[in-house]
């Protein structure tokens, strides 16, 4: 289907199914149950899952394929966001122009940064990208305040000129031809409450397209060249290929993905702040990609989901909630259990995140994807077909004779 082989088609369909049914899948617990705290199926977090999924997919095209580790990708996300909010301030609250401009601006900026940074490789490249991103952050926070709004950032305001629909922005609500991104439809079944959010489906649609393009890039001759760059750049040069345009193209593509993610963030939530460009934000996407499995198609999306889940769910569990959970225990035991868990939840969510990073990388060297593969292998072995062979994600084998 769509120029993909059977396996990739199946993967794409799986991703489509998962994103479309996310409001159900992420809300497995009834609203009033004690475990409802673990539900992630509310619009904002679902939007974040797919948006950071896009960001990580794009980052993986650069890092996973070419091995060039950029530490400045948050800058492109930030530039995309600023471009989008300015479109909303100047032109219209419709998200389409905002998203298009965010991709274009991020692409141009990444072209500039990439053109300079790709003169070096290895850690020297990483530091160059980091330097550009940190400069963007520092300037956006301070001297560029007239353009970026500085610390308090930019929001859509009633007083904005908005040439195309001057009266649409009363509350700064972004829309898609009138369909507001904040529009919800909720479905209550039994104890469950499922929310379907217009913005989420717009973002999810964009992610599916992004994912599809990523598959095509992975399977294309271009993708093969990128993997060749990671594998042996010297041989590539002696084969008559100039690696720089390939890396630059990959850099710009991943920069555009970041811009798209930035634009969607504004489309879902009309505001931008400069700390979106801080080095920790660049580091976060690196961690997402490695955590999920660099170089795999779906791994980065899983990594993004994992980190955002911890950030938004674990950080909100407080002692009061713990006491509710363990209220069935005898008092002394309850207090003991709560005391033991206390450092890892609420304000301790960073600690949990750090431990997860370490555990994953120690026990699953290929990231979460490797965990998935091991489980899959376990099932296969039970069925009796022993040899798994090589990892199909890392090393796609072209099938030339498939018509």
């Amino acid at each position, binding site marked *: 289907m769509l120029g993909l082989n059977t396996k990739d088609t199946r993967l794409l369909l799986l991703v489509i199914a998962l994103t479309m049914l996310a409001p159900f899948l992420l809300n497995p617990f009834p609203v009033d149950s004690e475990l409802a705290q673990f539900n992630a199926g509310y619009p904002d977090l679902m939007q974040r899952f797919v948006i950071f999924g896009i960001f990580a997919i794009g980052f993986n095209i650069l890092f996973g394929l070419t091995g060039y580790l950029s530490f400045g990708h948050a800058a492109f996300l930030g530039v995309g966001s600023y471009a989008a909010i300015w479109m909303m301030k100047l032109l219209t609250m419709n998200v389409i122009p905002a998203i298009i401009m965010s991709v274009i601006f991020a692409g141009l900026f990444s072209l500039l940064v990439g053109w300079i940074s790709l003169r070096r490789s290895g850690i020297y490249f990483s*530091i160059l990208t980091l330097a550009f991103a*940190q400069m963007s952050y520092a300037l956006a926070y301070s001297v560029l305040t007239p353009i970026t709004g500085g610390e308090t950032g930019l929001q859509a305001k009633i007083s904005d000129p908005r040439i195309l629909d001057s009266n649409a922005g009363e509350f700064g609500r972004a829309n898609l031809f009138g369909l507001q991104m904040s529009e919800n439809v909720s479905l209550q079944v039994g104890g469950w409450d499922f929310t379907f959010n217009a913005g989420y489906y717009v973002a999810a649609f964009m992610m599916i397209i992004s994912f599809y393009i990523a598959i095509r890039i992975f399977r294309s001759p271009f993708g093969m060249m990128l993997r060749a760059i990671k594998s042996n750049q010297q041989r590539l040069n002696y084969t008559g290929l100039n690696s720089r345009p390939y890396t630059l193209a990959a850099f710009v593509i991943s920069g555009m993905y970041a811009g798209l993610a930035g634009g969607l963030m504004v489309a879902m939530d009309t505001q931008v702040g400069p700390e979106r460009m801080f080095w920790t934000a660049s580091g976060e996407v690196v961690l997402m990609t*490695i955590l999920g499995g660099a170089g795999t198609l779906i791994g980065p999306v899983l990594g993004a989901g994992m980190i955002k889940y911890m950030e938004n769910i674990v950080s909100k569990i407080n002692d009061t909630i713990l006491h509710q959970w363990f209220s069935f225990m005898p008092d002394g035991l309850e207090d003991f259990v709560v005391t033991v868990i206390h450092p890892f939840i609420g304000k301790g969510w960073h600690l949990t995140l750090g431990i997860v990073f*370490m555990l994953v990388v120690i026990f699953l060297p290929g990231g979460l994807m490797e965990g998935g593969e091991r489980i899959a292998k376990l099932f296969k072995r039970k069925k009796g077909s022993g040899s798994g062979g090589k990892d199909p994600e890392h090393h796609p084998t072209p099938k030339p004779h498939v018509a």
Partner: protein
Amino acid sequence: MDAIILQILNGLDKGSAYALIALGLTLIFGTLGVVNFAHGALFMLGAFCAVTLSRILSLSHVVIDESRKDFLGNPMKVEVPYLHEWFGPEVGATIIDWSVPLSILFAIPVMILIGVIMERGLIKHFYKRPHADQILVTFGLAIVLQEIIKYYYGANPIPTPAPEAFAGSFDFGVLIGFDANSIIYPYWRLVYFGFAMVLVAAVFSFLQFTTFGMVVRAGMADRETVGLLGINIDKRFTIMFGIAAAVAGLAGVMYTPINPPNYHMGMDFLVLSFVVVVVGGMGSLGGAVAAGFLLGVLESLASMGWVIDLVPGINQIIIYLVAIVILLTRPRGLMGRKGVMEE
């Protein structure tokens, strides 16, 4: 002129902190080939060694003073440090006052131990893994370390002053013939600068003049060959990691009077120390030190009022700008060796 001399002095002082952190980082890069994102955390742990020792020295027992009331109107609880009881208030107070310098003795064994445990328990298993895995695991470790500190010491900075004897500043300008007040300099910063110099010299001479150092330097150049000679390079690298941790830790200990330590100070320095190491050139100890001082001085010069007026925001970005310029003109930083961390 005096303003520029003043800023160069400032820069050297700032640079000595950068250089010390970068020195340890580049030792780990060079010897072990590990991208250690937990290095900032080691600096932070060093600073908290000083905090911990000062807490230990001020361990107190509570005396209820009926004559005074606390804010709720209950009798005031007064804390009396044991040291005051044992040695009398004056000697006790002096010991507590000198807690930061005393922490050097406390921090060296603690930091070497932490370094060795880290290397043996974790880093060792990542030598052959891709840099990406090293980043993830050391970043995770850094988060865990700083969260543990946050859990016990809180997020707020903790004042850890220098001994009374080093408080205040002296007029350096008068010494070299400028007007009074034109170049003043705090005593403790001079101590820090001197300390950094001694530490850098110690590390260099250790590597230069001992057999141990020679083996390690050979190992940095070509690990496999040294291994083939039948020398147990792994064990030496473990010790090297311990030393790198101790250097970072000592930089942290002595830094506490300059700025009160807090749990995320390591992250604040992490990015900067990477920039310093890379600008200096991967695998070059001298480069790291030189880049540390260079960036420190340039940062100070860029913060002068008329410079900011001339180029708004330059003080925000100077370090990164310089890093970009240097890396574009010198492909491997100031003194980098070919082939290190370039793949």
